[in-house]
């Protein structure tokens, strides 16, 4: 497949908007192009949260069907297409993991916090994504451990703030404060790093 990678983040935003508009005109090629670009991070996120291949595929399929049926729900004034799509993926995956309560019971906070080391050659992955992934992981590692734990339990574990308070034995207000401080710090660190040289265009394997 041709490399559809734009040169800059602003270029990516323009291309994404054009592709979303194409979906509004029922252009299947536009949907496929967006799947090529974002299918892999969406699937990786769903897999991470659900730890189940079949459920993760269901979530990603639902996400792209929603995109196909309601492209007008994306508002470029309210953020990037990538963040909108990943937020939708996260929301649906969290819904699914909460329905499948036994999935979460099997996972500990250690599982949620664990990431593998740098990717090997078995997974096709553009250099940009690998670099970006390591930067985000470094930013997470740079957080104080209590903040990192609260964010990981929420984002990758699908736990609510009150559930995290129960898991950690902390007051709910403390959990909320740690999450806020952690997200502020991540925002600041990632904005200092910058978006990188290009966009997360990842061809399918």
């Amino acid at each position: 497949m041709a490399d559809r990678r734009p040169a800059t983040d602003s270029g990516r935003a323009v291309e994404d908007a054009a592709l979303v508009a194409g979906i509004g005109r029922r252009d299947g090629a536009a949907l496929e192009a967006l799947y090529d670009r974002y299918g892999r991070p969406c699937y990786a996120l769903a897999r991470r949260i659900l730890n189940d291949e079949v459920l993760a595929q269901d979530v990603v399929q639902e996400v792209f069907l929603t995109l196909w049926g309601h492209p007008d729900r994306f508002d470029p004034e309210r953020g990037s297409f990538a963040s909108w799509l990943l937020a939708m993926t996260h929301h649906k995956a969290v819904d699914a993991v909460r329905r499948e309560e036994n999935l979460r019971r099997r996972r500990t906070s250690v599982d949620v916090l664990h990431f593998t080391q740098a990717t090997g050659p078995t997974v096709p992955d553009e250099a940009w994504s690998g670099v970006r992934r390591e930067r985000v992981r470094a930013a997470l590692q740079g957080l104080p451990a209590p903040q990192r734990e609260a964010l990981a339990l929420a984002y990758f574990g699908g736990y609510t703030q009150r559930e995290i308070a129960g898991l950690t034995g902390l007051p709910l207000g403390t959990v909320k404060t740690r999450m806020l401080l952690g997200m502020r710090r991540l925002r600041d660190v990632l904005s200092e790093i910058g978006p990188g040289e290009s966009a997360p265009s990842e061809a399918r394997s």
Partner: protein
Amino acid sequence: MSPDAPRDIGRDAAHDEQWEQLAVGHALDALEPEDAAAFATHLPTCAVCGQSVTEMTEVAAEMALAADPVPLPDTLWRGIASAVAASDRPALPGNGVPAQPAQPAQPTEVDLTAIPKMIPGGTRRGSARLRAAALAVAAVVVGLVVLGGIVLGARYLDVRNQKLAAGKQLAAVLTCSEQKTCSVVPLRGTSGASGVALVTGGNQVGLVVRDLKASDRHASYVLWEGGPGGSVRGVGRFAVPGPGPHVVRLTSPLPLPQAAGRLLAVTREPGLTLPTKPTTPILLAGAFT
């Protein structure tokens, strides 16, 4: 609302921080239902929180990139393409053509006169005998699907898809049995593929096919309807995961004339949208009688 949720709206720093805590919880899908409801009410009234949600959602999306990379399953795009093809919103031909309002497809002049030579049998319409035959065909197909799943030891996903397909098949047949106009059109191919189309309700088609090559990201199948004079239009696009038997339901954008001599045909076409005319050889064909 949880005990820690803000109880009124002000602009002091402590108050803003409480709302920002909820904005973070919102971006991470980590709010309790009562907090989510309170924040949903507050959010449209507060530009500061709107900005905070936008920023925190972007940060959360960055966190997504930390997830371990995994290869995309081949079945994933196929499932999406199949669901898109089966979705209720008709996909009109070509790129850049507005989808609404739907325009009646113009018949395209394509020579289908050779199709009747491929068809060994005919169809009957509306009789109790044929409805019984349709049920029998469905029962055999459902049996094959279930048995195939057991014998071949298909993966969980495949078994589940087959069960779904069997359910759709049953639904199609039950719909057929309740319709005054119900046609069963056997489909025959030149390369061993075969199938049957159950046309009900004017524009509903239950289609069972087997031994068609699996569709992929580049191409899937299109069911065509036409007259013996050569006009043809697309009924719908569908994906085939494997040799099958595989069941799909299609909704034609326009009513299907179930008149003697009208033809149904299947081709394998590139892309996702419904083309205006077949561009590849006919793989399956049958006729109403």
